[in-house]
């Protein structure tokens, strides 16, 4: 079963830790991987999902490329791939 790395920044890092990994069944999408991850922590469920839908203010990267919530429902990460999640940015 593929093991996927989940990296979190800022508020998400404080809540979930900076780097996690989760093992999911084959053919699990990015969205499904994050849902499986969220179920492992009570804090993350409410922060990341509204019901079964990823919250729209979460920024997602798959292997260092930005993806949107629709992409997250179709992309199937492979073993060792990385998903990055972060809240809206505030530099400058």
């Amino acid at each position: 079963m593929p093991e996927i790395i989940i990296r979190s920044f800022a508020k998400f890092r404080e809540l979930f830790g900076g780097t996690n990994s989760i093992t999911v069944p084959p053919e699990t999408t990015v969205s499904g991987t994050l849902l499986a991850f969220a179920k492992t922590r009570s804090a993350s469920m409410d922060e990341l999902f509204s019901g079964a839908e990823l919250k729209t203010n979460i920024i997602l990267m798959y292997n260092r490329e930005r993806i949107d919530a629709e992409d997250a429902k179709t992309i199937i990460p492979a073993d060792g791939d990385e998903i990055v999640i972060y809240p809206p940015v505030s530099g400058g």
Partner: protein
Amino acid sequence: MVLALQKEDIDISALIKNSRSTKDGAQVVFIGCVRDDGNMDALEIEAFVPVAEKDLRDISAEAIEKFGLTSVDIIHRYGRLELGETIVVILVGAGHRSEAYEGSRYIIERLKEKVPIWKQELSGNARGEWVH
């Protein structure tokens, strides 16, 4: 052209000197600083450095293309910054002032909407709000 994230303070006069050419009629420097809003005594700045640096390169290329800038430098700091310290410096050069002002403004707005950098207020040893 310096496009970087760093912990150290930024040598603004070296940037100005190194980026100036005789094609420039104007340079505009934007400096973001840690403002005392009464709720904190420092900021902790977190960045996803490799992605942020790639984003700065993309934004710089966009701004050069869009405004015909002669040069762009963007340096953003991370780590703990005290009140009054420099957070970010954006320096652009252009033949004329309109492009320099507009290019500078474009870069800071794109940076704030896109680049993975976050600010958290610190008060004494306590970590406070993430600033938006």
